[in-house]
């Protein structure tokens, strides 16, 4: 409506604007780093090298990105339906419960080709079920989904602690974690997979769940833009009255959107439990659900954008960890601040550089 909404060329909108946001965030980070007495350029170099400097670094970056793709997609699907799912965290966590239960029940009896798909389905189903409760409360009872999904994160966390400490803990273990999964339930690491086709890379946490995440991207893209349900879902998100007119049942569509969202969040459990920990552990989903909101916003709700944003956040996570390791003055908390600033500039302040870009392109055009 106002001057700030005037359109920019498409490539500026999806390419240059996010870059400008990131650049601004980094500029501010640089100032902070300078203030605490570290050379910003040196820190930047460490950050970049830490994220993409070696095949191991790249592996970790991609491993984090896998989680962010899942949660980013989860938030985006709900968002297209006009629903703000803040509960990706809890849905991923409960997805892990499903994953763990499936594996613990089956891994001794079935071959990998059956255990892994069943465990993936269980992750998705439990994640979906955890999202279905707030969805139901919103659709039939009018409880606002933002509030209920946040509360369900806490419920999930408490439930998991209880189950891990009292029920699922491995006999004789001192830490609250389940017995290790049998080898039949392990998603192969990327290193092993690449070695198999003759490419040698350093070992890292990266595993074939990345392919599942990319598959999910394609699936979400097809669903949202190429199926009648995706069409109905987007109609509801833009204009609920038009959706009713078109014959979409808003209650059922709310359920569908949230279940899908929760199922996608459940993907985190696949990456973490089947790919890395190989047992059910506490807090494996910590932080991914919330960062997923930023990933979805930055990726403009489009799977391609989400992949790019997930890569950025993956790189920040990995590079940040290296940075904290190399320079003691920069703590883990500082790294979180960096992430926070990127989120701030590309989320809340996303339109900040718009007037300058507009001026730039108005003069040209």
């Amino acid at each position, binding site marked *: *409506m*106002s*001057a700030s909404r*005037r359109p920019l060329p498409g490539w500026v909108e999806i390419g240059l604007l996010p870059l400008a946001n990131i650049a601004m965030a980094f500029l501010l980070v640089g100032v902070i780093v300078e203030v605490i007495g570290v050379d910003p350029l040196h820190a930047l170099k460490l950050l970049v090298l830490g994220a993409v400097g070696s095949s191991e670094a790249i592996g970790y970056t991609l491993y984090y990105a896998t989680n962010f793709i899942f949660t980013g997609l989860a938030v985006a699907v709900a968002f297209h339906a006009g629903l703000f799912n803040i509960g990706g965290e809890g849905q991923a966590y409960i997805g892990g419960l499903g994953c763990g239960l499936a594996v613990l029940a089956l891994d001794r009896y079935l071959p990998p080709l059956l255990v892994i798909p069943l465990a993936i389905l269980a992750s998705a189903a439990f994640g979906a079920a955890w999202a279905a409760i707030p969805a139901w409360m919103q659709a039939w009872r009018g409880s606002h989904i933002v509030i209920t999904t946040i509360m369900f994160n806490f419920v999930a966390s408490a439930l998991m602690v209880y189950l891990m400490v009292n029920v699922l803990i491995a006999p004789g273990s001192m830490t609250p974690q389940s017995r290790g999964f049998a080898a039949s339930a392990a998603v192969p690491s990327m290193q092993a997979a690449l070695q198999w086709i003759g490419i040698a890379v350093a070992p890292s946490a990266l595993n074939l769940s990345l392919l599942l995440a990319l598959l999910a991207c394609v699936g979400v893209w*097809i669903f949202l*833009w*190429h*199926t*009648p349900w995706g*069409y*109905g879902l*987007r*109609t509801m998100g*833009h*204009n609920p*009255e*038009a959706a*009713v*007119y*078109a*014959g*979409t*049942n808003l209650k059922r569509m709310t359920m569908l959107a949230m279940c899908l969202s929760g199922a996608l969040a459940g993907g985190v459990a696949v990456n973490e439990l089947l790919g890395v920990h190989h047992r059910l552990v506490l807090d494996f989903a910590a932080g991914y659900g919330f960062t997923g909101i930023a990933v979805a916003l930055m990726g403009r709700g489009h799977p391609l954008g989400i992949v790019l944003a997930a890569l950025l956040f993956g790189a920040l996570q990995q590079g940040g960890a290296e940075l904290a390791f190399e320079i003691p003055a920069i703590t883990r908390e500082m790294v979180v601040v960096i992430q926070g600033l990127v989120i701030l500039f590309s989320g809340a302040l996303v339109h900040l550089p718009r007037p300058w870009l507009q001026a730039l392109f108005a003069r040209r055009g």
Partner: protein
Amino acid sequence: MQELTADAAIELRGIDKSFGSVHAVRGASLRVERGSITGIVGENGAGKSTLMSILYGLYRADAGEILIEGRPVEMASPRDAIGHGIGMVHQHFMLVDSFTVLENLILGAEGGALLAGGLAAARTELARLAGEYGLAVDPDARVADLSVGEQQRVEILKVLLRGARILILDEPSAVLTPQETDRLLQILRLLRDRGVTVVLITHKLREILAVTDKVIVMRRGEVVAERRTAETDAQDLAELMVGRTVRFDLDKAPAREGETMLAARHLSLVDGRGVRLLDDISLEVRAGEIVGIAGVSGNGQTELLQVLSGIRPPTGGEIEACGRRVDAAHPVDPAEMRDLGVAHVPEDRLRQGLVPAFLASETSILGYQDREPFCHNYLMDGPAVGRYCADLMERFDVRPRAPGLRSSNFSGGNQQKLILAREMARNPKVLLVGQPTRGVDIGAIEFIRRELIKSRDAGCAVLVVSVELEEILSLADRILVMFGGRIVGEVAAGEADERMLGLMMAGARAA
């Protein structure tokens, strides 16, 4: 030259505006004298709204100058325009649905950190304006609960409340009844006599001729003619707009009625607060006839369409649509109604009929997204949808012919044509139409009415709801009048005239 600009409230010089490949306004220049009423007419998509949006600071012109009271000004935003005393009533409502009327009225002019003061002041001011201009609305009603007609009144009040000296109205009367429109025109005259400058965009030449001092005609982005109102007539203006002769009369053969396709028996609808919105409605629509529902907006027509199309279940009585019975215990959803062959052109196109953010091609299948040929094996066929939309655009002359353009970027009349095309193209058995030609230019009105009659002649049962008496009279074979949620009278088209219907619509005669 100098004095000339001095008494011009608005002068636009060489305004040019393109949206991507759409050249919406081409070097338009015009002058509006202070204290006058100037009409702007032109076909759908001629660029009227765009030109006025530039004047109001919503869009920035690619080239050209704006002069207010003879001085060149920058209109970077509506704030600037309001600062220069310009107020605009938009073609599409810009109200916050969940706010009350009063809250909407003070939006952007809250008058201090605490709302109470502003609200109280607005309430007295509103009472005054309502009394003075007869624009009565309940200040505490939620906008979402108001009818389209009432919402329009709030829009007009909002601008009046700001004390604008230059008032731009973009199709303000599109939803008003003839009586209400007459009242609006009186208000405009009153405002002019008090020195307010009025710019009136409308498709209704009757209003232009009744109230304006000067008319400006736009065609395809250009100002093509300017006439003193006293020196022109409807035929002349119509030809200037369309560039060809327009026929106002609609010759149609008598209806050949078939079986009853849609029937309502003792239908009632009571809302959550116990208000009776529909009261014992019985009606029948037969194949091959057009039944018109006349009435002042807000008398239950909106709800009747909602119930008949399956959007809301009735609370009492029953419907029989193409052989399917519907009542409170056996509700039907709009998708099922569509399956039965009941198509629906909703009254409020922006809220129901389309999704502004969708592409035109996506809008062209709203409600039909899961049917052949748009969808096979659960996958939608994008190219087929695009081709279908292009075909609809061709047949219904939707401009620009751009299936890939966002729906919100089409002019109001072209959005309407797209929705009509969508609902009529699939040869429904029953066609429910709300305000078929609201905001549509005269050339297109002629076209749409002919299409409706063609559907009728092809055996479709057509139910038209319109607040335009003239429209009902020219289209319908049988006319029902609604008042207070009831049907208060039925007249055969041949026996009806405007005065008699007008009286019934005001509730003067119960049948």
